[in-house]
Structure formats: structure tokens, C-alpha cells
């Protein structure tokens, strides 16, 4: 906010500044309340007994707090299993993306070959086509291969890269000076040497983004696990949570405890990678 002092001479510069600050903070706090109250409601419900959950008027601070709800979630449904499954899937997808995205991005960013521009445009244009149109044939393909109710359909595509991440990493690799490659080639390095020893280490911030985005995508994915997984022991956290909702007369306290548990890993990741994440998402806003 720029402050124009000309129109309000009587307040003086400092007075106006303070007035601006106070109104600024008021707006900020009101908005913060709007965004945080549902989260608070989730957390406080997670600590309530069934009777407290359905109290009218609602208890804002549950007393006594039922911390054992969190362990009960693990007994009611195989939540620990869901956690492990989702971590495993996230790990496999991250490995897949790190391998494929870096290789492809390097090819597009640093090597010259006929048709490169056209292929790159084709890749970008696939971002504009909704992936849902491929959903049925993919399902048919995996079911003919006997891979329904396995993790393969949720892992294999990662090893072929993701257009958006390739775009992101390629942009980053373009910004690395080409002199470095030239110098290495003169010293007798191969293309793989250059890729592995020069480009990859320098592209580390972009790789962090690949890891963070992939983790969050896998952790939040719901439709694909829903389609491909039937065995409750193989469910992901999101899928397990949704079945928990439908399974019985809804226990809102346990369901909210489960929701809190489901948001912890992305939340932790968010706090560690906040800078990159918000920066990267602003890039995402301009993709296409």
C-alpha cells in the first residue's frame, strides 16, 4: 500500500502510517479467522468424545480432551497401513519422476535434434487436454494386463515423466550457462557426465520442486486409487478416509482425527519447503 499524505494533512505522516497499519492488521486478522476456524473445528472435534461431539451448544475447547481418539483411529481402521501404502507410492513416484523428468528436461534444454521444438510444443499442448479422456482406456489396458488392484497403474506412468514437471525443470536447466557444458566436453566428458556432474547438481532447487509436487500429488490423489484399488489393505490415506466415512454411522470425532492425521505429512512438507512451494506455484499459475 502506498501512502498518500497529501489528502490527509492533519494526521501527519506517522499518524497516517499507524492508521494504515491498524486497519491493515484488522483485515488480516478477520481473514485469518475465516481461514483458520474450520481447521480449528476439525482439530477440536478430533479431541471430543461422541457425546461432546453432538453437544448443543458445541464445546469450543473439549474438556477433557480425548487424545486417545488418535490411537483409536489406528485400531478402528488400518490407518497405519494406509500411511505406509501412501508413503510407498509417494516414494516410488518421486523416484520415477526424478529419473524421467530430469532426463527428458535435459534432452529438451541442452541437446539439439531435429523436431525438438515441435515435440516440446506437443508436450505442452498435452497439458491443455484433460487427462480424464484417457481414464477409461488406461483402466482397460491395465485390467487386460491383470494389474488391477496392484500399485503398477499408480507407479508406472511416473517413469515416463510429467509434462508440467518436465517444463518446469527444463526452464530451470535453460538458465544454466552453456559454457559449463562446453568446458566439460573439451576436457573429454561425455553427455552423461555433463548431465550427472554438472547439470543435475546445479538444478537441485528444481529437483526439490519435483519432489514436493510429486509427494503432494500422490498424497492427495483420490480418483486413481479409487479406480484401481479394491483391497482395503492396499488403500491410500485419502481412499481409506473416504471409506471410513461411508462404513458406519459417522463417528465425526474419529473421522476428524483421521483427517488431522491425513493432513500432517503435507503440512510438515509445506513448512519445510514453503519458499520453493509458493515460488513454484506462482510458476504453475503461468503454465500452459
Amino acid at each position, binding site marked *: 500500500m502506498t501512502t498518500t499524505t497529501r489528502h490527509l494533512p492533519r494526521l501527519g505522516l506517522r499518524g497516517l502510517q499507524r492508521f494504515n497499519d491498524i486497519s491493515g492488521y484488522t483485515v488480516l486478522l478477520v*481473514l485469518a479467522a475465516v481461514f483458520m476456524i474450520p481447521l480449528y473445528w476439525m482439530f477440536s*472435534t478430533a479431541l471430543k468424545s461422541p457425546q461432546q461431539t453432538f453437544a448443543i451448544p458445541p464445546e469450543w475447547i473439549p474438556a477433557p480432551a480425548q487424545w486417545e481418539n488418535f490411537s483409536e483411529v489406528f485400531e478402528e481402521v488400518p490407518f497405519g497401513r494406509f500411511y505406509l501404502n501412501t508413503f510407498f507410492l509417494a516414494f516410488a513416484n518421486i523416484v520415477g519422476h526424478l529419473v524421467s523428468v530430469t532426463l527428458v528436461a535435459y534432452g529438451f534444454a541442452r541437446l539439439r535434434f531435429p523436431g525438438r521444438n515441435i515435440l516440446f510444443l506437443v508436450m505442452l499442448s498435452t497439458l491443455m487436454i484433460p487427462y480424464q479422456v484417457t481414464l477409461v482406456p488406461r483402466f482397460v489396458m491395465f485390467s487386460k494386463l491383470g494389474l488391477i488392484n496392484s500399485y503398477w497403474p499408480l507407479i508406472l506412468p511416473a517413469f515416463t515423466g510429467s509434462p508440467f514437471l518436465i517444463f518446469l525443470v527444463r526452464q530451470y536447466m535453460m538458465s544454466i550457462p552453456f559454457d559449463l557444458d562446453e568446458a566439460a566436453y573439451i576436457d573429454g566428458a561425455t553427455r552423461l557426465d555433463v548431465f550427472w556432474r554438472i547439470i543435475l547438481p546445479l538444478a537441485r532447487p528444481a529437483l526439490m520442486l519435483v519432489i514436493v509436487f510429486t509427494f503432494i500429488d500422490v498424497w492427495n490423489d483420490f480418483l486413481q486409487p479409487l479406480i484401481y484399488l479394491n483391497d482395503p489393505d492396499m488403500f491410500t490415506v485419502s481412499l481409506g478416509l473416504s471409506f471410513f466415512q461411508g462404513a458406519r454411522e459417522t463417528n465425526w470425532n474419529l473421522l476428524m482425527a483421521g483427517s488431522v492425521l491425513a493432513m500432517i505429512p503435507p503440512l510438515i512438507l509445506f513448512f519445510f519447503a514453503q519458499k520453493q512451494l509458493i515460488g513454484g506455484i506462482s510458476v504453475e499459475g503461468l503454465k500452459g
Partner: protein
Amino acid sequence: MSAFTRVSRSWTQLSPSERREALAGYLFISPWIIGFLVFFLGPIVASFILSFTRWNIVGTPEWVGLANYERIFTQDPFFRKAVTVTLTYAAIYLPLEVIFGILIAVVLNQKLRGIGLFRTMYYMPYIVPKVASSLVWVWVLNPRYGLLNTMLGWLGITGPSWLSDPDWVLPSIVMMALWGVGGSAVIYLAGLQNVPNQLYEAASVDGANRVQKFVRITLPMLSPTIFFQLVLGLIGTFQTFTPAFIAAGRSGGPLQSGLFYMLYIYNRSFESMRMGYGSALAWIMTVFIMIITLLVFRSSKYWVYYEAERKRTNR
């Protein structure tokens, strides 16, 4: 693609070392080429062919010609419902997303101590997994014990029964989605911070007030960002699945009032296992999205302001 230094030439014009480089290039991008063929192009073509068949995945597909499309457009009330629901949602949600996104970005663009903390708080709902955030809202919107109706009660208002009332299902889902508006606000914030300060200073010298500055400087400078957010948001609306599935229910809620298009595709394809019909639905959606995207791109020259363009015409 100005970054590419050389005009690409055909294979025969390349020197041996250039050929080796080209070969390496193809090898490096081969994972994506395989993925493109196996997981994208192949399935799209297959989906097109499947859309002319009747098939429940066991047995052989039966060729029915245009029957699926004919039925969708003339006899399928759910198709009409799904299109109406999705477009209504887009018409309500997208403008609100732009307005709130920009307003919050403006609020976050103040130079105040501790602003980072607020940015984190506004952004947090966006990173809650969709299933969890949908569940939270189902509980917040519980007509009797939910938070929202309790708070409305303080004001003496009897809240509606939200997700059980056909008239309130869509507004509920809009509200749920707006809770995550911090995600777009951050993008607008980045756009705001790219607006050169001289523009505001020059305007101040000319005696412009805040509102004039916002309308004449901020909005035009943000228009490319708004444009991309709208395009992505429109595509995203047609892909909305999880909130509808969790909050409205897998069959679309009371009177199918929450039957989002994607939910309908899911129901036809994977609940009733009608692969051909589902493919036809998916193809209609794809074509529709491509047309809309094209129209939005075409219209962009009338309202999107590009810095680079101005430079070109002025000099």
C-alpha cells in the same frame, strides 16, 4: 522459442557429430515419448474408438455407431443435469475465485511486520488433502451440530440444511472450494509484486487515488495472470471430482444437485462399467474444453494486457 539458437534442419543435413547429438537427444527424451504414446495418444485414440461401442469390459466390444452420442444428447437426463451443474458451478465459482483471490493478494501485499505468518495461514487450507478438507466441510455444514449453522444461530438465522438441500448443495461446494482460495491468492500476489513501482508513483504525481490506481494499473497488469487462472480454473471445474464425491455423495446428492460432470463419467464408466458410454462422455467433455479454451484464448486480445506487446507497438 527464441531460446533455440539454431533453426532445426533435417537429418541428412547434419554433420556426424550433430547426428550423434541428435541421437542422444532422442534417447534422453525417450521416456516422455514412450509415456506420450502409451499413456496419452494411444488411450485418446482408443477412447475415441470405444465411444462408438457398447462394452462392459468383459467380452468383446459391440459396435453401435453413433448410438452412445445420440442417447447422450437426446435421452439422457443425467447428462443434461451434469452439464448444468458443472456450468452453474463454474459461473458462480470462477468469478468469486478471481475476486477473492485478488482481494486477498492485495491484503497480503501490504508491507507489515509478520505478513509471512498471515500468508501461511491463508495458504494452509489449500494444502489440506481434498478428501480431508471435504470431510471437514461436511461436518462444518452439518445442519444440526455443524459450526456454520451454530454461528448463524448466534445471529438469529436458521441456517439451511446445506448438503441435504438440493438448492444449497452447489453453494456449499463453492464455499468449500473458496476456502482454498489462498492457493490462487499466492499466484496473484506474485503478479502484484511484479507490477513496477514507477507506475504507481507516476500515478500519484498525477493525483490518482487508490481506486483509480487499482482499476487503471493493478488490474491491467494482472490481466495475464487472471487470464491463465480462468483457463486453468475452467478446465479444473470440469475435472472436479473429490469434493463432489465426498460432499454430495457418489451418486450426486439430493436430486443429483451435485452431479459434477466428472462424477457422472466415473459413475457410468466404473460403477456401471459402461466403457463405451463413459468414453463418449469423456470425449464430449474434451471437445467442449478445447472449444472453450480456444474461445478464451481468442477473446484474450480484447482484455489481456501484455507488457511485451506494448513495447513492440510503441517503439
